[in-house]
């Protein structure tokens, strides 16, 4: 059914359709509307046979989900940014134990300095934790990916992180098509755990594994994700057949078949990118967009095949590997068979800074004409950073960096420097 609702609401309704049994809720912007929506549905009994638990921290949220999942219940929670880091120990624990928990991460920057707006640093900081990571391009895909996530996770016995851009997607009112309960029930059977805590068949879950077996255990975790790579396209096909639209899968290609330049990105920026690319195409530039939907497991072969014709690859990412450069671009680099210098990392939109069509156009024009550096920070105020660096060189007590910059921008009332 078509509805014009907030992204968070769409996700809540999708999750509710999946018949979750235990939901753990802890507030953190910008995911809170999701759990609020679910909480109301449980309380009004619109979502029945579900335990909604207000926990005391994100660490507790993931822990409760672990307990519930290990005991055979379908478990769900949502978080972002600082919350994801606070539960990091439990995040690794969940994937290590192979528990099919589904979690929404409403992508948000990580402090210090504290910032509540969107970028991908939070999810990507956990990229190696063993969870499946899926990135939604728009609210419809966000909704759909949650339904696929439960199916995927429970088939493989792996937890799944569904990532959607905080505020940009979560708080945007878009038209979405919400499936019926019958459609979801047909696609998603009841949860049948591969291992479970059951008095009728006691097991000890979570043994201490030493050097003699740990490598094998980790290999098996890796192998499981590799298996996911094989299965995800199939599930996406099944989804298309059942619900009548493209959603999920490993990646989306837009006008890449004959492209010399391919722009790679995750999440909502893909929409802007496609508009920009359409403009450039009208100017005769052979350029295409590759949207990565499944970031983990990394679709190495699929990315490679999508990029094999391209001469240059520009990776636009809302994330930064401090001290290295781009995170997504490094992952892309492993897949790209072309000359080493042909992958360009463009760091953009950190902390929620808007990525405009104009900036993208300018940057892509540079790329096409070979003027793009290997590592670029889009729309960086160079003068400001130079001043800040100079200040640090001159004075020992140069003060908090963020405050100094804000003062410089005139945002904050300042003492004379």
């Amino acid at each position, binding site marked *: 059914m078509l509805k014009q609702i907030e992204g968070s609401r769409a996700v809540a309704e999708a999750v509710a359709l999946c018949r979750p049994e235990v939901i753990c809720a802890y507030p953190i912007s910008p995911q809170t509307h999701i759990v609020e929506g679910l909480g109301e549905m449980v309380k009004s009994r619109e979502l029945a046979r579900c335990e909604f638990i207000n926990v005391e921290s994100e660490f507790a949220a993931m822990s409760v989900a672990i307990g519930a999942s290990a005991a055979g219940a379908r478990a769900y929670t949502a978080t972002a940014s600082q919350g994801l880091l606070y539960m990091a120990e439990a995040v690794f624990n969940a994937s290590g134990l192979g528990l099919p928990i589904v979690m929404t991460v409403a992508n948000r920057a990580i402090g210090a300095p504290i910032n509540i707006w969107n970028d991908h640093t939070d999810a990507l900081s956990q990229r190696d934790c063993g969870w499946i990571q899926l990135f939604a391009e728009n609210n419809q895909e966000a909704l759909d990916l949650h339904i696929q996530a439960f199916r995927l996770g429970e088939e493989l016995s792996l937890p799944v992180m569904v990532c959607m851009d905080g505020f940009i997607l979560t708080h945007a009112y878009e038209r979405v098509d919400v499936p019926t309960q019958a459609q979801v029930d047909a696609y998603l059977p009841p949860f049948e755990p591969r291992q479970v805590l059951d008095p009728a068949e006691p*097991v000890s879950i979570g043994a201490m594994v030493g050097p003699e077996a740990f490598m094998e*255990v980790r290999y098996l975790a890796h192998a499981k994700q590799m298996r996911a790579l094989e299965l995800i396209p199939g599930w996406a096909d099944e989804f298309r057949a059942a619900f009548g639209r493209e959603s999920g899968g490993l990646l989306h290609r837009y006008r890449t078949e004959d492209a010399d330049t391919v722009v790679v990105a995750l999440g909502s920026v893909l929409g802007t990118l496609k508009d920009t690319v359409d403009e450039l195409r009208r100017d005769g530039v052979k350029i295409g967009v590759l949207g990565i939907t499944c970031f983990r497991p990394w679709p190495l072969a699929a990315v490679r095949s999508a990029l094999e014709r391209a001469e240059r690859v520009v990776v636009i990412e809302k994330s930064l590997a401090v001290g290295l450069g781009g995170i997504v671009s490094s992952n892309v680099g492993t897949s790209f068979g072309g000359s080493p210098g042909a992958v360009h990392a463009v760091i953009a939109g950190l902390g929620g800074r808007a990525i405009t069509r104009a900036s993208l156009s300018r940057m892509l024009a540079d790329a096409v004409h070979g003027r793009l550096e290997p590592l670029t920070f889009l729309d960086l105020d160079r003068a400001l950073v130079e001043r800040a660096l100079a200040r640090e060189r001159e004075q020992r007590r140069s003060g908090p960096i963020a405050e100094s910059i804000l003062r410089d921008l005139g945002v904050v009332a300042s003492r004379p420097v």
Partner: protein
Amino acid sequence: MHKPFAITLDPGSSLANRTGTWRTMRPEYVDRLPPCNGACPAGENIQGWLYHAESGEYEAAWRLLTQDNPMPAVMGRVCYHPCESSCNRASLDSAVGINSVERFLGDEAIRRSWHFEAPQTPSGKRVLVVGAGPSGLSAAYHLARLGHAVEIHEAGPLAGGMMRFGIPKYRLPRDVLEAEVARILELGVELRLNAKVANIRETLQAGGFDAAFLAVGAHIAKRAYIPAGSAAKILDALSVLRSMEGEDRPLLGRRVVVYGGGNTAIDVARTAKRLGADEAVIVYRRTREKMPAHDFEVEEALQEGVLIKWLSTIKQASGSSITVEKMVLDANGFPQPTGELETLAADSVVLALGQDVDLSPIDGVPGLEVDDGVVKVGADMMTGYAGIFAGGDMVPAERTVTVAVGHGKKAARHVDAWLRGQTYVPPPKHEPATFARLNTWYYADAPKSVRPVLDLVRRQSTFDEVVKGFDESNALYEARRCLSCGNCFECDNCYGVCPDNAVIKLGPGKRFQFNYDYCKGCGLCAAECPCGAIRMLPEEI
């Protein structure tokens, strides 16, 4: 269920890890000798029969008791209970009332008419027992149970020895004595009364006996030289007490003096009181601490109004009075005359100065040695003459009924072995179960019960039993105060306190076993065993 490799494990997999290899000390179950068992002159397995009594299995308790001692009802009245004196519980609160429980069991057996089991197949041997006192009766009992044909020749008109003719009725009612004697005779023992043995070898020959056990006791009163007038009435304690059994009561008069400090003196004085004497005075040459009589008997006597003149000797006796001389103890504790004299009114003087053995039956028996008035025997209770054994008051020993009973049992075993041409070697004793080995925390707080005592008025006028027995609840309670020193009583502590679940419970009555595959040797079982029945030994590595 699909269990992820290494992360999820099946129950029971830890049993593959045999932690027994960690041990440097290893526990072992032991049986240690409880001090009561060790102290009992009759060799009773006291802890063993208390174990049965605790759970109300009185017949089982009685049967175990009578494996060693056939007369618990008597013992429960006359034994001086060295078991209680050595009881470990005394170091906790007070000793277990073993004697009271023994009496209860004996009385219960009489009340419920329990009988001894029939003896095993006859051996074809005949054994003569001389004397139907405690030692002779005990020997006869054990010999009969071993299958021998036993004949007792008793010089007196009734069986019992000192139990009949020495211990007053207020201590040992005669119906109790008769019941227990009868039960022994039921085993087929033949009893001939008024049949004093004049010559042992002749009697052996005439009766075709293969061996003999002599237990004639010590029934001859010792005398002292006291200058006495013709009217003076001087008697000896043994004949006074003996005459209490007959129809005629002895005429002692209103003021009776008893000379001596042993239990017999006390018995006579208390008897005199009951016969109506206004005054019964014991004259003893030393002090109360030195008095050979048991202190509780002295106490009972004093309560009944018996007077005691300490540090006095009798110099002279006349028809209505005696002269006593005051004594004083010298540096070595011996009484010395002071020269101070006193006159006491006395209608009769009863001498209770000790007892001698009538050795006439063994006169002239070659090899048989007598020393200081008693017959020497070896560790096998045999005299110097092969085939003639002896026990009780006539051999060197402490003179009590219990010791005598113990001699009877011991001698019977040796007689039995000798008759088969073998030697009886007693099994080695376990190491003692000392108080230090117990963990007394686990025993319930339970002070000793006290036996009810007849009130004074009745004690002075009748021969009713002075000290009453326990009823069942008291006896049961008292039995349950037993700590079971050194012997497992299945409290399950070891089974419960092992952190490694390395103790196997075999079932009620079957105790426990250590699982040495997993026992790490921590020692908790031994430390928390209330009765000290576990020992830790170094492991052989």
